[in-house]
């Protein structure tokens, strides 16, 4: 029996591809939701520093275990991301370096170290090491069903945690000194929020890579902010934008082999942002332009 023309490409989508798409969609949603508080707390670049630092941990985890097990590599990436954030805090506190400069230093130095490790591993031809470069720009085609399920579970947990503490997170992000004066442990809540962003940055590595994963936690929130004046709506919209961006990246890179996923994800997110920037009611460029006339 031959399938009618037009159905065939659909049937070509394997079970694995579908599961991977679902996993990546979950990551996109959670990254969009969690990223909102990074943006609202004006810490958009902190996630980027952590993201660039993940490469070190990924490479070290590979060297330590000799295998390219995604969970192990991601745990390594998470740890080195946290170390980078710790260094960032210390730099700001002990050396009086300004926020932006400290972030730039941590970001570039940790990325330099990560690239050195990864290219060292590749150059020595350590078995299995060649695939590590995929963590640079993202490559979802290599994900297994188990990997995708793990990513989906982590994403669900991150969203759940954030929704549970939405009241606390909003309070601290809006007015941290009032929060502190009324007895909330602002530093602890702040650390938890940063930690959630770090978790999603790491979970987003397979989809977008260390260089571009920030786009998943920054662009959807900024685009979502254009459309709404309420935090809950912003979270939801940002999540949806994250899903659309992530799926676009996965779909195109599945059709065009050898194309890294990360850049496609970023381009899709950038398109959503551009549309939001122009046509959003009230805050959009067009609405403001019309008001001014």
């Amino acid at each position, binding site marked *: 029996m031959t399938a009618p023309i037009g159905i065939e490409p659909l049937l070509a989508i394997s079970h694995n591809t579908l599961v991977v798409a679902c996993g990546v969609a979950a990551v996109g949603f959670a990254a969009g939701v969690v990223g909102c508080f990074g943006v*609202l707390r*004006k810490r958009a670049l902190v996630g980027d520093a952590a993201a660039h630092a993940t490469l070190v941990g990924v490479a070290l985890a590979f060297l330590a275990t000799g295998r390219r097990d995604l969970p192990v590599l991601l745990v390594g990436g998470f740890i080195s991301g946290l170390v980078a954030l710790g260094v960032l805090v210390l730099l700001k506190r002990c050396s009086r370096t300004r926020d932006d400069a400290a972030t730039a230093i941590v970001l570039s130095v940790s990325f330099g170290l990560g690239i050195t490790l990864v290219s060292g591993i590749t150059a020595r031809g350590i078995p299995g090491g060649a695939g590590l470069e995929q963590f640079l720009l993202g490559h979802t085609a290599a994900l297994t069903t188990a990997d995708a399920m793990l990513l989906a579970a982590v994403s669900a947990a991150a969203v759940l945690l954030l929704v*549970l*503490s939405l*009241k*606390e997170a*909003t*309070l601290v*992000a*809006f*007015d941290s*000194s*009032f929060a*502190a*004066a*009324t*007895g*909330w442990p602002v530093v602890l809540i702040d650390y938890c929020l940063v930690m959630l962003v770090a978790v999603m940055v790491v979970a987003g590595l397979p989809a977008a890579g260390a260089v571009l994963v920030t786009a998943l936690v920054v662009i959807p929130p900024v685009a979502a*902010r254009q459309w*709404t*004046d*309420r*935090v809950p709506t*912003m979270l939801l919209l940002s999540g949806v934008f994250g899903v659309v961006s992530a799926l676009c990246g996965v779909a195109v890179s599945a059709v065009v082999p050898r194309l890294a996923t990360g850049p496609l994800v970023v381009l899709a997110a950038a398109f959503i942002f551009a549309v939001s920037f122009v046509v959003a009611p009230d805050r959009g460029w067009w609405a403001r332009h019309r008001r001014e006339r």
Partner: protein
Amino acid sequence: MLWNVDLTIDEPGLFGIIGPNGAGKSTLLKAALGLIPLTGGTITFFGRPFAEVRGRIGYVPQRETVDWDFPVSVSDVVLMGTYGRLGWFRRPGRRERDLAGESLARVGLADVAGRQIGKLSGGQQQRVFLARALAQQADVYVLDEPMAGVDARSQELIFGVLSELRDAGRLVVVVHHDLRTAAQWFDRVALIDMRLVAAGPTATVLTPENLERTYAGRLDLLDELGRAVEERGRTS
């Protein structure tokens, strides 16, 4: 920044902390609320450290400390005043919403409850902060420059609410920089210029000598105040 301040405020009423820019008024307030560390000395409320009694203290920070473009509505912000009592993970319910609504009505903002906070005027924004403090249902209210950059109508409204609190037996501590209005508004004041200059009933503290010690070199201001104090003396 600030030293040698030995100050006890032990009766209800409107208490002004007055001094020139950079005198350390806000520093004193923030230190009292545990927002900045003390290098020495102690600050207590009801004889106990602030941390133990913070539920009884309502706080109105300076308006510039937050981003008014933040995506929350006016009533969302006022609801935040109830969070301290709610505790972790509990969502505000009917009771909290009613309280927020009442607080908003007291500062004359009931009709803009659903608006995004950035769409309000400076005076209205300040009243939102005051409503949030009212929703804290505190015994002591601490306000940091509530009249800075605020239109006349809002000033009157804010002063009206503070007077109501005083009449209800609350203590209201206000950091304030405008000498002219200070003489009219406060029952008692403390003059501060990096140290405590004087404290007590407004009429006995706002003397030319004390003011000169506080505002050395700012004499044109002093002349204005001298007239204000004299007027007050005549009317009372």
